């Protein structure tokens, strides 16, 4: 047993890299997929709409921990190949992000009035041009506050990767806590770091929402 020192603090901050890396990976792969899901959800084709809705419902009805374990422990056994941890974890977070962001963005797209599409059509714009120049910008503005809110959810969600032995912030906290026998100090510090990451986003999301409210 040793006392809590600067080196422990440094190891926590260093582990933060992986927390950030997981968030970035989830967004890089999850956001395009989310856009696809959202566009599928408002598609003209009923079959596509239902498939996308089912996909989103399924992922949202399974615990994130379940997704992580399924792709980390289950999938490699099923496929009979070695899957690097980072890939398994990225797949799980990507699906999680895609489902939640997809549903948020669908809400934004549907909140734009039908007449806006029709106005675009009257101006002779193609379906894609209507989406790209008329609907998407308005939908983006509407769905920005909940998107930032989800980001907080995602940052908190990356703590679950610690359970798979991924040394991000929460896992580093466990290691330091075990080494120093100072759970109070360590976990308080870990919580404080998460708090410092998430609070600005929460406040930003709230101010975006307030601004939106005023413009209506």
């Amino acid at each position, binding site marked *: 047993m040793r006392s809590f020192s600067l080196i422990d603090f440094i190891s926590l901050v260093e582990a933060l890299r992986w927390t950030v890396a997981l968030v970035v990976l989830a967004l890089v792969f999850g956001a395009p997929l989310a856009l696809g899901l959202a566009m599928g959800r408002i598609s003209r084709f009923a079959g596509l709409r239902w498939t996308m809705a089912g996909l989103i419902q*399924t992922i949202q009805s399974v615990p994130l921990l379940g997704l992580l374990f399924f792709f980390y422990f289950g999938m490699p056994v099923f496929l009979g190949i070695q899957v690097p941890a980072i890939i398994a974890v990225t797949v799980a977070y990507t699906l999680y992000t895609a489902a939640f962001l997809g549903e948020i963005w669908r809400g934004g797209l549907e909140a734009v009035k039908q007449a806006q599409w029709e106005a675009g059509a009257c101006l002779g714009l193609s379906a894609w041009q209507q989406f790209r120049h008329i609907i998407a910008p308005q939908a983006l503005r509407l769905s920005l506050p909940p998107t930032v809110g989800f980001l907080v959810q995602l940052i908190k969600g990356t703590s679950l990767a610690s359970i798979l032995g991924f040394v991000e912030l929460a896992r580093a906290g466990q290691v330091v806590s075990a080494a120093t026998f100072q759970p109070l100090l360590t976990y308080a510090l870990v919580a404080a770091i998460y708090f410092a990451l998430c609070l600005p986003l929460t406040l930003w999301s709230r101010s975006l929402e307030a601004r939106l409210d005023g413009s209506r």
Partner: protein
Amino acid sequence: MNFLPLWRYQNQLIDGAIVTLELTVIAAIAGLLIGIAGAVALKGRIAPLRWLVRGYIELFRNTPSLIQIFIVFFVLPTFGLKIPAFQAACVALSLYFGAYSVEIIRAGLDSIPRNQVEAGQCLGLSGWQVFRHIVLPPALRNAYPAVTSQFVLLLLGTSLASQVATDELFHVAGFIESRTYRSFEVYAVICVVYFAMAMSFKALFAIIGAMAFRWPRRR
């Protein structure tokens, strides 16, 4: 792929699912009570109490549920307050759910236009009558969807309690996996069980919602 070895663990799975449901219901009820108390405090006149509630909300909404469970389970014993895993998970999840509930309930109450309250007062209704007949029914209707979706998230979130060895569903999964080494099948089954529970609750809430809030809407 072979699901047969899992069959003999069905009793454990059912027991695990029951513990998961217990955790969810206890945390939901305690959390809603916290939510109501918090919303009342936020509406109240005592400024320090309002700050306290705001601080509580921000603190619990901006830190991971997993860390909160760890703090309750690992840190409280250092103060001589040793509580079993299940109770620790209940406390942590209640506080987490409570923080969201305060905001949901407050938003529900805020959704009632001020002039409706004034209209009630003009009709000579008492403060309680205004609340009971004018504010509460529409506020409940407005808050209902958010509460139910938060409830489903809580149900899924109870899986984190497995990390402090509460023997709920996800913990059972780990146990079965260590016995059978059938990771794929075990986690596939567990995900399906959570899916079934989440879907059942969504369906139940949809039915309750349709029955409870069917008074005439303004057309």
